[in-house]
C-alpha cells in the first residue's frame, strides 16, 4: 500500500483534480437540493463529460456529485419539508422541526458537519479496508463471481417497493435487456433483429437516461406547473450549535457512520436503508427520546452521517469485485471502465497509484463539501425554488446531449427515448425502475459467469460449492431469501390483524 501513496498523491494533487472535485461538489449539492432531481440523475447526465477525461479527474468529478448529493438532499428536507433525495427523508424528521423552531441555519450546519464526518470516515474505511477486500477478491474465480451475482440479485427484494412480484417482473425485464447483443460465450447475436447498432448490446448510460431522467420529464409534463416556495428570511438565525449539542452529536454520528459503512459494503443496499436504520438506532440509544420528531440534533446527525458514510463503502465492492454498491455507483462503473480500469482482479496492483489517488481523493471530496457547504448553503437553498418551466428544458437538453455523446450516434438518442416511454408505462403500472437497472447491471455478469463456470467444470454444478467463498455466498443468499420471506410473512400478518 505504502509504495502507491506517493505516486497517488502526485497524481491527485493537481489543479485540474481539485477543480473537478469542486465543480462536482457544487453541481451535486445543487441537484440534490432540488426535490425530484436525484443524485443518480445528476451522475447520468454528467457521465458523458468524463469520457474525455482521464480516470482520476473523471472519478473526482463524479464522486464530488455523489458525495455532495448525500448532503444536498438535506437542504430541502430541512427548509421545505421535502427531501431533495430519498435518503434525506430521515433527516427531514428532525431537520424541518428544528427549522420551524427558528434554528434553520443550525439544522443545516448539523447536517453538514455530520455528512462531512460520515463521508471522511467512509473514505478512510475504503482506503484501509478496500485493498484487503481486494486481496480476497483476487482469489475469486468464475464460480465465486456467479455466487456473488446471485447474492446481488436478492437485493431486488429491497428495491421492489410495495410489490415484490412487480419488482421481480421489472428485474426480469432488466435481465432480458441485458441479453441484447452478442452472446458472451459464442459471440452470436441475440435479439438484435438485424440492427447493427445492437450488436454490442445497449449501453447502460443511454438506457439510464431514458429510465430515470427523461421519464421524470414525461411525468412532470402530466402535472400542473408548480413552484416550491422558500422563505429565505427563515435563514436568519445565528446558526449556533451549543457545546452540549455537539457532545450529544458525537455518539450517534460515530455509530451511524459505522452503520453506514457496513450497509454500504453490502451490494445493493443504499443510503436510505442506512439513514433510517441509524435514525432508529440513535433514537433507541438516546437519553432524549422525546426530542425525536421535534428537532433532535441527534436525529439529524445520525441520519446525515449514515447516508454519507455509505458513499465510500459502496465503492469497496465496486472497486474490488465489480459489484456496484448502489445505483449511482453502478453508473460510475462505466466511468472506470472507459478508462481501462476493470474493477476487481488485479486493479489494486496493476493500477495501484490510480486507485489510491481516487480513494485519497474521496477524503478531499468530503472536505471540499464541508467548505462549500459552509459558505454556499444560502445559494443551495435558493436553488430549491427554481421554476420547473426553466429547469425541465435544461434537463431535456442535457439528456439528449448525454445520450448522443456516448457513441456520437442519433440511434442512441432514440434508444433513450424508447426507454423513457417504457419507464413511463411501467410507472403507470406502478412498477419500480430500480430492479430493471439491477437486472441490466447484473444480468450479463451473472449469465457469463454461470455459463463459463459450467464450461470449466464440464457441466458439473459442484463447481458452485467448490470453495469457501462460494459456500459463504450460498449461505448469505439463503439467509437473504429467508429474511425476506420472514419479513413478508410478518407484513402479511400485520395486514390481516388490521
Amino acid at each position, binding site marked *: 500500500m505504502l509504495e502507491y501513496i506517493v505516486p497517488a498523491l502526485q497524481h491527485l494533487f493537481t489543479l485540474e483534480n481539485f477543480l473537478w472535485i469542486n465543480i462536482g461538489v457544487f453541481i451535486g449539492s445543487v441537484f440534490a437540493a432540488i426535490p425530484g432531481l436525484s443524485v443518480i440523475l445528476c451522475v447520468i447526465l454528467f457521465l458523458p463529460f468524463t*469520457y474525455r477525461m482521464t480516470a482520476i479527474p473523471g472519478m473526482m468529478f463524479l464522486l464530488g456529485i455523489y458525495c455532495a448529493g448525500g448532503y444536498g438532499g438535506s437542504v430541502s428536507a430541512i427548509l421545505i419539508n421535502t427531501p431533495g433525495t430519498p435518503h434525506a427523508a430521515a433527516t427531514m424528521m428532525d431537520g424541518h422541526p428544528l427549522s420551524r423552531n427558528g434554528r434553520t441555519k443550525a439544522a443545516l450546519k448539523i447536517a453538514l458537519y455530520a455528512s462531512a464526518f460520515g463521508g471522511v470516515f467512509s473514505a478512510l474505511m475504503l482506503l484501509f479496508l478496500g485493498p484487503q477486500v481486494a486481496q480476497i477478491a*483476487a*482469489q475469486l*474465480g*468464475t464460480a465465486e463471481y456467479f455466487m456473488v451475482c446471485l447474492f446481488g440479485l436478492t437485493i431486488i427484494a429491497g428495491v421492489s417497493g410495495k410489490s415484490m412480484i412487480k419488482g421481480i417482473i421489472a428485474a426480469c425485464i432488466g435481465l432480458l435487456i441485458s441479453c441484447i447483443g452478442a452472446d*458472451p*460465450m*459464442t*459471440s*452470436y*447475436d441475440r435479439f438484435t433483429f*438485424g440492427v*447493427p*447498432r445492437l*450488436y*454490442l448490446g445497449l449501453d447502460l448510460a443511454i438506457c439510464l437516461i431514458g429510465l430515470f431522467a427523461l421519464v421524470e420529464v414525461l411525468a412532470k409534463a402530466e402535472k400542473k406547473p408548480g413552484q416550491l416556495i422558500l422563505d429565505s428570511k427563515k435563514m436568519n438565525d445565528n446558526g449556533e450549535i451549543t457545546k452540549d449539542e455537539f457532545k450529544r452529536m458525537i455518539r450517534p454520528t460515530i455509530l451511524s457512520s459505522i452503520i453506514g459503512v457496513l450497509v454500504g459494503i453490502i451490494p445493493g443496499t443504499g443510503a436510505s436503508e442506512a439513514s433510517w436504520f441509524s435514525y432508529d438506532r440513535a433514537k433507541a440509544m438516546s437519553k432524549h427520546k422525546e426530542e425525536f420528531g421535534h428537532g433532535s440534533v441527534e436525529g439529524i446527525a445520525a441520519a446525515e452521517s449514515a447516508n454519507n458514510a455509505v458513499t465510500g463503502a459502496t465503492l469497496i465492492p465496486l472497486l474490488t469485485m465489480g459489484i456496484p454498491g448502489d445505483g449511482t455507483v453502478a453508473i460510475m462503473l462505466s466511468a472506470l*471502465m*472507459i*478508462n*481501462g480500469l*476493470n474493477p476487481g*482482479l*488485479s486493479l489494486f*496492483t*496493476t493500477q495501484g497509484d490510480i486507485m489510491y489517488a481516487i480513494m485519497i481523493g474521496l477524503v478531499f471530496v468530503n472536505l471540499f463539501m464541508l467548505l462549500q457547504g459552509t459558505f454556499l448553503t444560502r445559494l443551495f437553498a435558493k436553488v430549491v425554488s427554481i421554476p420547473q418551466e426553466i429547469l425541465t428544458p435544461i434537463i431535456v437538453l442535457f439528456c439528449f446531449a448525454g445520450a448522443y455523446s456516448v*457513441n*456520437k*450516434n442519433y440511434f442512441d438518442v432514440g434508444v433513450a427515448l424508447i426507454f423513457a416511454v417504457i419507464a413511463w408505462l411501467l410507472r403507470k403500472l406502478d412498477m419500480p425502475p430500480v430492479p430493471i437497472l439491477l437486472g441490466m447491471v447484473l444480468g450479463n455478469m451473472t449469465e*457469463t459467469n454461470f455459463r*463459463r463456470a459450467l*464450461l*470449466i467444470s*464440464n457441466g458439473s454444478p459442484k463447481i458452485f460449492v467448490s470453495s469457501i467463498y462460494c459456500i459463504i455466498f450460498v449461505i448469505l443468499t439463503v439467509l437473504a431469501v429467508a429474511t425476506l420471506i420472514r419479513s413478508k410473512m410478518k407484513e402479511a400478518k400485520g395486514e390481516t390483524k388490521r
Partner: protein
Amino acid sequence: MKKRILSSILALTMAAGLLAGCGGSKTATWTVTCPWAPSGVAAMVSQKAAAMSTDYSENIILVADAIKGDAATVNTWVADTKADDTELVFAGEGLFSITSILDPAKLQFTYDDFMFVENLYSSVFVMSADAKLNIKGIEDLKVYAEGVDEISVAANGATSSEAFLAAALFGSMGFGDKLKITPYSSAAEAAQAVARGETNFAVSHQSQILETYQQGGVTIVCAFDGEDISEGEFAGVEGVGKYGYPYFRNRCFVLARSGTKAETVAELKKLYDDILANDEMSAWLNDTMMLEVDTMSEADVQEHIQNVQDIVNEYYDIVVG
C-alpha cells in the same frame, strides 16, 4: 447598461470567431476513428500518433477518436463518409478475416470501400501456461498435450484472434479434438484465469500477461510468430513458425474512404511513416506497449488478410464447434 455591455461582448466574440474561421488556412483536420475501446492498444497508439502529427505536417492535423462498437462503428463510418472526406478509420484482421467469414451479415462493407493508408504496429501473441504445469516450450507442450484428455485455453472472446491462434496451434499439432476454448470478457481476465488454474493456458498480447508472468503465476510457452522473441522480458520464447505451425500477428490498418485522391493518401502515409520513425514513438511502442513498428504496403495487407482467412477457414470447426 450591464445588459448592453454583455450583448456587445457576446457579439464581438462571435464576430471574432467567424473571422477566425475565414483565415483561408490550408490545414486539414483528419479525424481518425478507432472502433474499439478508448483504453485499448489501438486507441492509445492512435492518440499518441495524433499528438505528434503537428510536428511533422503543416497541412494535416490528426485527431484521434475512439467509438467502441467494432463492426457497428465501421458500418456507420462507411455509411457517413464519401471519397475525399477528411476521415480515417482503423480496421484489422478481426473484421476482414474473422467476422467476414463467421458472421458476414454484420459487415455492411468490404475491403473495397477503403483505401489503405498505413499499418501502425504489429503485436505478437504469446501462449502462457499455469505455472504448476511447468511447460516452458513447444516440446513440453507436445508431451503435455499427448498425456491429457482436455486442453483448456482462456481467450479474450469466443471467436477472437486469440481463439483462432489456439485452435491453429493445437489443431495443427493434432490435438484439435482435445481443445476447449474458454472465453473471457477481457484479456486481463483471461490472464488471471490461467494464473488461478481455471484453465491450463491463455493466449494474449505480451503486455497483457507480463504482470502475471512477473508474479510467477504463469510460464510462457510460445510466441505466435515466425521466429523466437529476440528482446524484452520474453526474449528467447520460441516462435511456433519455427516448427511449421500456422500463426499471424495482430495488425490494425489505418484506412481512408475509397475514391480519396491518391496523393492525399500518399501524404497521409508519409505523415504516419514520419511519426513512426520518431525514436520516442518507437521506444514507447516497444517498451511500454510491447508492440513493433510495422509499416506495410497494400500487398502486405492483402497477404495478411488472406493468411488469417486461410487459418480461420481451416480451424473454423474447432473454434465454432
